[in-house]
């Protein structure tokens, strides 16, 4: 059992970069998957809607830890060995996609039906209708729950420790095992997470106010 030294805090900060990288990967990947799922979920075709519903139920209903585990270790079972980064990207994106898809589905459905009818009357096809009329209006409604989910995602990157990433939480655990100083170590880890998540919430507040400028009376 050794004493804490300054190198340990540097170790935590270096582990932070994996947390940030994983969170960014999950946010981007999850965003892409979520957009597809949201559009499928609100599609006119019933088959598309049911496919999306099945996907959402599956990934919302199973633990993220198990999903990561199955992607990473299951890849080998199926003969397609996936590296740690690929598994993490895939696992987090699929999971985040399910949650973001539902959030954005709600936001899309919050846009008044009249907007869609008017867009149709003007002769806009599906893609221009979604990307020029519906989604920009859905954005304002979608921001609070999306940011809330992304903040949660940053913290759930700690689950990647099961597939070998020494990210912030795991680094804290490893240091605790070597020095047996849980309060100072985990206190520091918690503070680092807080200062990682705080700018996101500030930025989201700013974005909401800017988007809402048109609605202020």
């Amino acid at each position, binding site marked *: 059992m050794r004493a804490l030294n300054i190198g340990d805090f540097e170790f935590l900060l270096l582990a932070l970069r994996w947390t940030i990288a994983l969170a960014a990967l999950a946010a981007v990947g999850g965003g892409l998957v979520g957009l597809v799922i949201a559009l499928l979920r609100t599609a006119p075709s019933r088959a598309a809607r049911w496919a999306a519903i099945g996907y959402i139920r599956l990934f919302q209903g199973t633990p993220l830890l198990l999903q990561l*585990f199955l992607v990473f270790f299951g890849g080998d079972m199926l003969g397609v060995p996936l590296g740690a980064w690929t598994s993490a990207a895939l696992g987090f994106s699929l999971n985040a996609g399910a949650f973001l898809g539902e959030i954005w589905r709600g936001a899309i459905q919050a846009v008044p039906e009249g907007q869609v009818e008017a867009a149709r009357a003007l002769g806009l096809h599906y893609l221009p209708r979604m990307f020029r009329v519906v989604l920009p209006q859905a954005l304002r409604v979608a921001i609070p729950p999306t940011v809330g989910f992304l903040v949660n995602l940053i913290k759930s990157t700690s689950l990647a420790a099961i597939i070998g990433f*020494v990210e912030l939480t795991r680094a804290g*655990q490893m*240091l605790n*095992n*070597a020095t*047996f100083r849980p309060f100072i170590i985990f206190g520091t880890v918690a503070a680092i997470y807080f200062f990682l998540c705080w700018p996101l919430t500030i930025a989201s507040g700013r974005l909401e106010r800017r988007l809402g400028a048109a609605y202020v009376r």
Partner: protein
Amino acid sequence: MRLIRTLLASLLLLATSAALRPSAAQTVDEILSRGTINIGVLVDLPPYGILNDKQEPDGFDIEVAKLMGTYLGVKVNLVPLTSPNRIPFLLTNKVDLIVATFGITPERAKQVLFSIPYSAIENVVFAAKDKPIAKIEDLKGLRVGVPRGTVQDVLLSKALGSAVKISRFDDDPSTYQALLAGQVDAIAETGLTGDNFYAAHPEGNIVRKFTLLQQPNGITMRKDQFNLHQWVNTFVYFIKLNGELNALYEKWFQKPLPVLPVF
């Protein structure tokens, strides 16, 4: 329609490629030609595996692993693992072998290959000084903490079943700390590490109650790695004979290497 056909075709392809997976067992020659060996180790069980003050894996197991690399003549790639994921990492070829304080039992030998023992672990029941616990039956009705999936977990579950309330923790330090915090009445854990931990926290008044079991540890490999297994056995036999293993044990445990029966 075309989309469905393409999807079905790709699904079929994936299924057949799974059946065509190569099943070659890894040999020592493969490792030599690759030039590196991936060894899984624990870094959260002092003094078997720790993070030293340069935040690198260090400890008895790690030094044995590095010595293995020296004798084999390849670079050692240490992969820090945890108790829950050390076997999945081994079985899915992500590491070539693990030196991770893995107790040799016949149950486990159904799934993996063990080398001859290279260290031993004493599993001891710790509790507060005033608790009258002298043998395993005294644990009935108490809350006992163990790390998940370890030998002591299995042993207590089998011996006492529902007569004891077992709390399973994710790693060893959590288990030690749980007893100190009073979340459990007793724990079954590694003796030496516990001695060091509770000596540094005398306010808990925790002492050893009795030794649950003595477990020799083996270097663990996949079931089909016969070639590597024979090399590893030769390695352990050699460093036991020439005293290097004893020297490492004395460095980390301040005691001579205990008698380790071979098989």
